[in-house]
């Protein structure tokens, strides 16, 4: 008789809550009433419940399914980030979907399933779970990107995201296969042990490179960033917010764990590789962002640049480097989700979304509160103190200087100065120009307002009182990097 492996669902609790909420949404969707607004509430409740369930689990450190799923502090930190990102996306969606006439139950269900995938990625202890998580997350996002069935750009985004994403996943699978071949396991700890026993194994190095290609697509680092601007632009803005924050955080979660735990022995290899990738990613992202007039595309390139900054922290390594990346992801999630949220609340009176920078001319005169809010997010993205973005960069670059990567840091801070140019341009339009072209208006949305308020409080709190959050981030990564 084959002994059944112990099934401890406790280690999956937060993910299961989100998943269960997704199933519930699907079921409720079948029932009357036909209005779908309450489904957003259900989704939100599920995410909040998952968030709350994470609190008592802190420091419990459970493992399940033969170490395939880990629920350590590291996973919980990311669960919180991901659930925040999803919750903000849900809040932003509620009125946005109705405005665009695409209210549907499956939207929320897909969003929750995708979130489940992201959370699974954060708690993956095995390359196969990484693969599962990425697939679950991505497949749902491919569909969500194409939500606006009648818009060409939305279809294009979905198609492009799907094709390139599938391509990337196959690279990832090749990498997993090679590493399995070299080490005889897909489990992180066992890979680490095997790789330590056979240093500088060519098979591991090739597998590592292929893994990095796959992850490179998911976090949109150069040269695998091509999909990001088109997808960010074409996808519904609420979905873009999730792709830019939650999916990126999840991919980083898995990437950091794979690199620092499973492939610790290959650190000299990957840190050199990532050094170059970080340098190129932030520079390319920032320089191309300067040329963008579409706000969503600009934020896409800016998010590429921010990935470059985070890779600096990963290169720096150690508790301080990895902890800085975690803190930065938290800060970045609030800021970027907020920025997309602010864009989503502005609408042109002729056709749909206001995404051209010209649409924002004179916004401060008509909608001072919204302009100030978007301005705050942009200042945080630049890294102006005392906002979250500044502290995040401070930790990142601090860890890099500490590890001796001074020139990479210099490149990073100069990039931040370049970035100031295009972020400030939006502020120039909002505050220093008179309205031009088509009229824009602010869409009244209570839920959207709540989302922005949470994000603003988040970036100010993280900026003024960063210490408790940074400490949590460090505690979370300490067992990984030991």
């Amino acid at each position, binding site marked *: 008789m084959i002994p059944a492996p112990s099934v401890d669902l406790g280690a999956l609790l937060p993910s299961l809550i989100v998943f269960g909420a997704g199933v519930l949404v699907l079921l409720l969707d079948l029932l009357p009433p036909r209005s779908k607004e309450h489904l957003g509430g259900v989704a939100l409740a599920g995410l909040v419940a998952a968030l709350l369930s994470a609190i008592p689990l802190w420091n419990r450190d459970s493992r399940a399914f033969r170490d395939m799923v880990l629920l350590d502090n590291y996973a919980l930190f990311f669960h919180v980030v991901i659930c925040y990102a999803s919750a903000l996306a849900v809040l932003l969606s509620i009125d946005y979907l109705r405005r665009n006439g695409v209210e549907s139950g499956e939207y929320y269900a897909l969003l929750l399933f995708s979130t489940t995938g992201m959370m699974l990625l954060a708690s993956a202890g095995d390359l196969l779970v990484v693969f599962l998580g990425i697939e679950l997350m991505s497949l749902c996002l491919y569909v969500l990107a194409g939500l606006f069935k009648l818009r060409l750009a939305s279809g294009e985004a979905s198609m492009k995201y799907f094709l390139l994403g599938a391509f990337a996943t196959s690279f990832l699978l090749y990498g997993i296969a090679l590493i399995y071949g070299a080490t005889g396991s897909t489990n992180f700890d066992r890979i680490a042990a095997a790789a330590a026993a056979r240093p500088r194994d060519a098979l591991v190095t090739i597998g590592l490179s292929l893994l990095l290609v796959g992850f490179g697509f998911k976090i949109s680092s150069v040269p695998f960033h091509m999909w990001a601007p088109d997808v960010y632009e074409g996808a519904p803005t609420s979905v873009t917010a999730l792709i830019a924050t939650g999916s990126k955080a999840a991919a980083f979660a898995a990437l950091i764990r794979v690199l620092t735990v499973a492939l610790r022995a290959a650190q000299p290899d990957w840190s050199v590789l990532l050094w170059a990738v970080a340098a190129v990613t932030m520079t390319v992202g920032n320089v191309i962002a300067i040329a963008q007039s579409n706000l969503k595309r600009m934020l896409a390139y800016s998010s590429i640049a921010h990935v470059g900054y985070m890779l600096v922290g990963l290169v720096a390594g150690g508790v301080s480097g990895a902890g800085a990346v975690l803190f930065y992801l938290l800060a970045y999630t609030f800021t970027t989700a907020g920025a997309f949220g602010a864009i989503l609340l502005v609408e042109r009176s002729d056709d749909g979304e206001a995404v051209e920078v010209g649409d924002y001319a004179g916004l*401060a*005169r008509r909608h*001072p509160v919204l302009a100030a809010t978007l301005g705050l997010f942009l*200042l945080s993205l630049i890294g*102006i*103190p*005392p906002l979250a973005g*500044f502290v995040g960069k*401070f930790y990142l*670059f*601090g860890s890099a*200087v*500490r590890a001796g990567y*001074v020139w990479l*840091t*210099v490149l990073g*801070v*100069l990039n*931040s*100065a370049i970035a*100031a*140019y295009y972020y*400030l*341009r939006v502020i*120039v339009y909002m*505050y*220093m*120009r008179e309205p031009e072209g088509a009229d824009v208006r602010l869409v009244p949305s209570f839920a959207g307002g709540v989302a922005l308020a949470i994000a603003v409080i988040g970036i100010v709190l993280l900026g003024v009182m*960063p*210490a408790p959050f*940074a*400490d949590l981030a*460090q505690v979370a990564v300490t067992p990984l990097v030991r």
Partner: protein
Amino acid sequence: MPVGRLSVVTFLPALGALLILLLVPRRNEPALRWSGLVVSAATFVASVPLWTRFDAGDADMQFEEIVRWMPGLGVGYHVGVDGISMLLVLLTTFLMPLALASAWHAIEDRTKEFVIAMLLLETGMVGVFVSLDLFLFFVFWEAMLIPMYFVIGVWGGPNRVYAAVKFVLYTMVGSALMLVAILALYYQHGAATGVYTFDLPTLTRYVMAPGRAQTLMFLAFSLAFAIKVPLFPFHTWLPDAHVEAPTAGSVILAGVLLKMGTYGFLRFCLPLFPDASVDYGPWVYALAVIGIVYGALVSTVQPDLKKLVAYSSVSHLGFVMLGLFTLTPQGMVGAVIQMVNHGLSTGALFLMVGMIYERRHTRLISDFGGLWGVIPAFSAVFLIVCLSSLGLPGLNGFVGEFLILVGAFTVDKWLAAAASTGIILAAVYLLWMYQRVAFGEIRHEANRRLPDLTPREWAVLVPVLIFVVWIGVYPKAFTAKTEVSVQALIAQVESKASVARGPTRLARP
């Protein structure tokens, strides 16, 4: 928890800005103006005890406050003033109400945002001068950029957006490298002593070995400060920013913001990197003298009053830089006094250019002439301010420049000779400008009906004039407050430099 006086002075404007944001309705412009003025005046009143209760015999930091902020990183909220920063804090709190009062009629669009931006700017500026923690300092240093950016970009002249973006980008590039240097210093100090801290007094006590690391850090800090001063050749943002900024913005920009650069050299570069400061002293001398002469020459040929004053700042700040790097008591005291003087004189010049611009809507020198006969009070005050700026004995400008030249002379007499041409050139550009504006025939009909100074304008100018004369006649009241602090600073720089290099290098030629 009791709140210290420095915290009150620093955050009162920000608190006022918050209250104005929440409580004062956008349409009620008089209430907005008055509340802004009241907040800034209250801040000035709150800052006066910094002067009266200041112990001039004590070289240490006074009014110190230390609160743990991010203990894991060694970041603390540590503020305090010595005889140098105290004067600059008072200069800031003194100029701000005047700047707000000067904008009474000049700013009529989005007054609410203007008042809030100016008050936030004040918090940032005071914060820079009182911070004794590098992290805190950097926070204020960067945060202060944004309100200034809005002041120039929203309420400025026709080319304001270009000027505002240029101002921010220049400053950000400089401060970006300074951030790296701050981090490098932090880790170097931590590795050497085991104490990881951004606390400035602690870091200052650490004697860093001379060499490449110290030089690079010095250069990174210096770039940030040199852009702010601005030291030739990093001055190109200044004429744009000044010309486009509204009068109140120009006053603050010239009066206070530029001082943040020279103050940075004095507070951070000299004590933290003494060897590199001594090594690169000759370079600073050269750039300072070039700035003095170049700024003056360019000023001479400006057709626009505001541009003339802007370039004169390059020249005057060159004197300050020269005085600081002489590392002599006279030169450095002179430099500190000159910082205050420049804030008063140039601030007043910008105020008066703004007043005449409000009347005529032009700043071209050729559009004026014969104003003495039309607006005698304005012309008389303008003359006093010009004389103060060009360093007439008996007025404030003379004291600072004289002391700086004495200091420069002890270093190298040719240096002093070259720098003193700046004083002659200052007389040339200011008096020639004054002659074309105030004397001669009235060449434009529009100039015949100009009204003279209003009571509000008198109220703005008289306080400045009082200090112009006070510092000129009895400078001891001011120099006495700074002397001990300056002596302590010089002793610190020299002892650190000599510890690191051995006593032979201490002797100065």
